[in-house]
């Protein structure tokens, strides 16, 4: 494919040097390619995966970001919210008010590999990645960013639909349900209500009473499996769903990817 020609005596020095001479004059009288880093910086593209930032007003504390983090460098930490923050909280306002402490993500950037899964799988779009990349620090402790240090406030909140990126939803086994309603208390999107269940159910301790069972609004379920984790009777398990845009807030044909 590439042209083959006979190699002559000019190809020892002269012809190769033509190339280097050309480049020499080009970069002497033009601008060299290299960027003088600390003084000049290249602009990252808008998709750049840099340090994380959390829009607290959108965050519902569901913990999916910690769930999908391959390095487990992201943990949900209980955080005190001020009254104003509680008022502004959008989806999670009820959780913030009900629980003594709301949970917000904190990141250990010493372990983070900037894969962007937390951003991709966030059901509300609260987790974002900025183009800030100069995170170097002199100590390991300095790389642990507490939840509040990553908080950002946007003047106008994007109206994003709740999306179930986890492709799973909880399924109830009403046989073992004891009707404790812990799942309702902990559901970050308030998609569970307690309603009629098994009548005259015999519990483990021998007492017999009517039990209320949880019912799920799958249109706004985000598949965070918080209910499965808090269930004391192991009566919930996750099962795959067919469509990620099953959320009721999504209109047909709308692009779901933020």
């Amino acid at each position, binding site marked *: 494919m590439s042209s083959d020609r006979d190699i002559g005596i000019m190809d020892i020095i002269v012809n190769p040097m033509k190339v280097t001479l050309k480049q020499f004059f080009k970069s002497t009288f033009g601008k060299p390619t290299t960027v003088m880093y600390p003084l000049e910086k290249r602009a990252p593209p808008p998709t750049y995966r840099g340090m994380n930032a959390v829009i607290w007003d959108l965050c519902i504390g569901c913990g999916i970001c910690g769930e999908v983090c391959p390095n*487990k460098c992201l*943990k949900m930490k209980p955080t005190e919210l001020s009254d104003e923050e509680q008022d502004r909280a959008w989806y999670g306002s009820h959780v913030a008010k009900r629980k003594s402490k709301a949970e917000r993500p904190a990141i*250990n950037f010493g*372990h983070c590999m900037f894969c962007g899964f937390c951003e991709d799988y966030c059901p509300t779009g609260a987790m974002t990645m900025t183009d800030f990349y100069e995170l170097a620090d002199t100590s390991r402790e300095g790389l*642990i960013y507490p939840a509040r240090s990553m908080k950002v406030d946007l003047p106008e909140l994007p109206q994003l639909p709740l999306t179930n990126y986890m492709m799973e939803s909880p399924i109830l086994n009403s046989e073992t349900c004891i009707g404790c309603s812990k799942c309702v208390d902990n559901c970050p999107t308030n998609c569970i209500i307690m309603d009629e269940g098994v009548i005259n159910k015999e519990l483990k301790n021998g007492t017999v009473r009517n039990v209320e069972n949880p019912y799920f609004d799958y249109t706004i379920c985000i598949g965070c499996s918080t209910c499965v984790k808090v269930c004391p009777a192991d009566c919930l398990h996750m099962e795959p769903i067919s469509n990620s845009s099953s959320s009721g807030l999504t209109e047909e044909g709308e692009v779901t990817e933020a």
Partner: protein
Amino acid sequence: MEITKFMKKLSSHKGVSDVALIRDNVVKLDLGKEDSKDFFISLKEDYGFEHCSLISAIDNQPQFELVYHFSVIEGSIFIKDSPKTVMIEIHIFLERDTPTIESVSDLWFGANWHEREAYDLMGIYFLGHPDLRRVLLPEGFAGHPLRKDYVYEIHEEEW
């Protein structure tokens, strides 16, 4: 040789069972451990599988499974109206207390280090291998880490 004819011929070999076409160019079969060497020799000499792609060992609990992938590069087996070349996937099951099999590294040199790796990480012994040492882990490492019963510690930093 057309691939359907090739599959027919394969089933006549000793120890071969369950010959199936899992994709349009991939033949899968199960092979008995005792007849493996003869089959591999004829695979190379008669059917022209020049290239050993991969040898993977699986711990199926309790027995081990060896999966051989061989491929044709310029051989005589073809598929009608397709530029695709043929691959063969061979499953061999080994007992847990005798994880040994005859080496194929004298037939395909490319299998040499795959066998070493299978020995290193899964503890399969290849009889007749010229140089069966650990390849990825250091000499003197205890145990074979890809076995499911290998006990290891998960270290998680608290922060």
